[in-house]
């Protein structure tokens, strides 16, 4: 089976040769550390995925659903180990120069209706010229082949997460109360944009496979936005988008949200968002096994393997692989670590995990080849 056939069969609970073997990626620090244990020098966090023989579950089509044109990215201030940068979203952040991490917001252009109308709304029109990538026609021609090997993923925007990023948590939280009509207008503008792009992309005769949305709207205690506000402002608009997708034959709609998502999952399902990624286990113990018990086959899942288990040792890794295996076997679930592999995971442990994943979930069938290192470290592993 191709990556696409296997992924679609998995997410539709249909027969397949094996489960997809995927990853979320690696911290650059992790890859560098692993080099002292034998990982080839030429690898980085972008190329390690292929080196480890991973299947693909996503394939972005290059449609730009965010700000277009983006803001110019510029360094505002160099502070030695850190720097203040204005990013492509217009947000000023303080970030580490030499360490991969989530930056701190230090300034926002989006503060009120005026700045919305001046800086952001004009960058959220579907007609802007940068929305579709160059050579779109040639790409589309290739993608029309029903036998194409890779999954094609349409972008589905972000109804809260982007606004939260553009304004900051405090400002968007206050806006919901101080000017709800404006908050609603921002959400509606993004929804209109996403729907228009979906329609246009699908008008070229390609059967796209999935749609990926992004929110990151939860923290360890639960959602950043109250459930009533979620239901009032977001849910109907998710539904507009997912209805549109289903009309175009796209029935796998995944949403990327970190943090404790437990209370939002039923609402997303109600809104037609049927797949969650990457199921951050966190200190709150999110668990694909429990989700399957609670939501049955209505909820598709990507991720959910506790990355911290990888730092603990062989026995713990095997226990976790075994614990997840029944859900993997049932389908509707592609397991992988719930974020990038952190530097406290020894390469030998990661190899142990991969060996087990390829054996138990991959059944040793038609797996992608790995580098020589694999054979040296894992012996007779598949």
């Amino acid at each position, binding site marked *: 089976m191709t990556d696409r056939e296997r992924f679609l069969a998995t997410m539709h609970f249909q027969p397949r040769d094996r489960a997809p073997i995927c990853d979320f990626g690696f911290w650059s620090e992790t890859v560098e550390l692993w080099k002292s244990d034998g990982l080839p020098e030429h690898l980085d966090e972008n190329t390690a995925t292929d080196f480890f023989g991973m299947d693909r579950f996503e394939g972005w089509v290059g449609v730009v659903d965010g700000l277009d044109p983006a803001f110019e990215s510029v360094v505002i201030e160099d502070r030695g180990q*850190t720097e203040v940068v204005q990013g492509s979203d217009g947000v000023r952040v*303080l*970030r*580490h120069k030499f*360490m991969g*991490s*989530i*930056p*701190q917001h230090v300034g926002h252009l989006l503060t009120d209706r005026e700045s919305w109308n001046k800086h952001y709304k004009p960058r959220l029109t579907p007609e802007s010229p940068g929305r579709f990538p160059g050579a779109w026609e040639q790409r589309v021609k290739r993608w029309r082949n029903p036998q194409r090997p890779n999954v094609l993923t349409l972008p589905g925007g972000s109804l809260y997460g982007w606004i939260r990023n553009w304004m900051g*948590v*405090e400002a968007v*939280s*206050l806006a*919901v*109360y101080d000017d709800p009509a404006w908050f609603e207008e921002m959400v509606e503008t993004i929804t209109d944009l996403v729907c228009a792009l979906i329609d246009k992309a699908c008008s070229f005769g390609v059967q796209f496979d999935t749609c990926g949305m992004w929110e990151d709207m939860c*923290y*360890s*205690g*639960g*959602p*950043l*936005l*109250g*459930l009533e*506000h979620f239901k009032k402002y977001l849910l109907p608009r998710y539904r507009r988008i997912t209805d549109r997708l289903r009309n175009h034959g796209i029935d796998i709609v995944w949403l990327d949200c970190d*943090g404790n998502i437990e*209370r939002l999952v039923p609402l997303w399902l109600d809104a037609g968002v049927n797949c969650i990624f990457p199921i951050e286990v*966190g*200190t709150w113990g999110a668990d694909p096994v429990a989700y399957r018990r609670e939501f049955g086959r209505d909820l598709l899942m990507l991720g959910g393997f506790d990355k*911290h288990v990888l730092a603990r040792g062989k026995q713990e890794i095997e226990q976790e692989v075994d614990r997840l295996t029944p859900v993997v076997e049932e389908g509707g679930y592609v397991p992988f670590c719930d974020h990038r592999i*952190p*530097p*406290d995971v020894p390469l030998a442990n990661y190899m142990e995990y991969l060996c087990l994943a390829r054996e138990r979930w991959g059944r040793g069938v038609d797996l992608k080849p790995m580098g020589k290192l694999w054979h040296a470290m894992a012996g007779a592993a598949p």
Partner: protein
Amino acid sequence: MNPLESLTDAVVRGDRREAVRLTSEQIDGGSPPKEILAALVAGMDTVGDRFQRNEAFVPEMLIAARAMTESMAVLEPLLAAQGIRPEHTAVIGTVQGDLHDIGKNLVAMMWRGAHFNVVDLGTNVAAEDFVNAAKDHGADIIGLSALLTTTMPAMRQTVQSIREAGLHAKVIVGGAPITAEFADSIGADAFAPDAATGVDIARKLVSA
């Protein structure tokens, strides 16, 4: 509902104009400032309770805190004139290497809402800066926040520095990757799973 209960209710609803109006009305009417303060703090406590019960979320905490802050701006001169100051001081910051501040800001806000004097050191704060600030301000509480697993060792280091400095302040830790077990293991006095619980814990520690 009596006027002070109405004030509490205005804070709970995050109705800042009404809260300020009622605060001014109470001041003009000669209510003891301590009672007005207690009504405001009661509002924040109610929101904190609701937050812990998952009936209120971050926006509701923020609008309540704003109503409290604006009311306090009216009340503060009167409190100062009568020598009523926060009984306890808390120093708070995100540990070294960590640039995240949302959780830390929420805790600081809730502590202020409980009428603690809060010294916010910001993010990426070195262990010695926590120690020095706690000494300078005579802190009763030190709050340490971390979002990243990679900065948890810095939290351990900070607790160690605080202990080595012999400070009497109680250390409360929190953040997405932090657990009660980790808090115990690094010698912190308490773990706060969320901002509202952070108030309960701080009160308990300073009254112990």
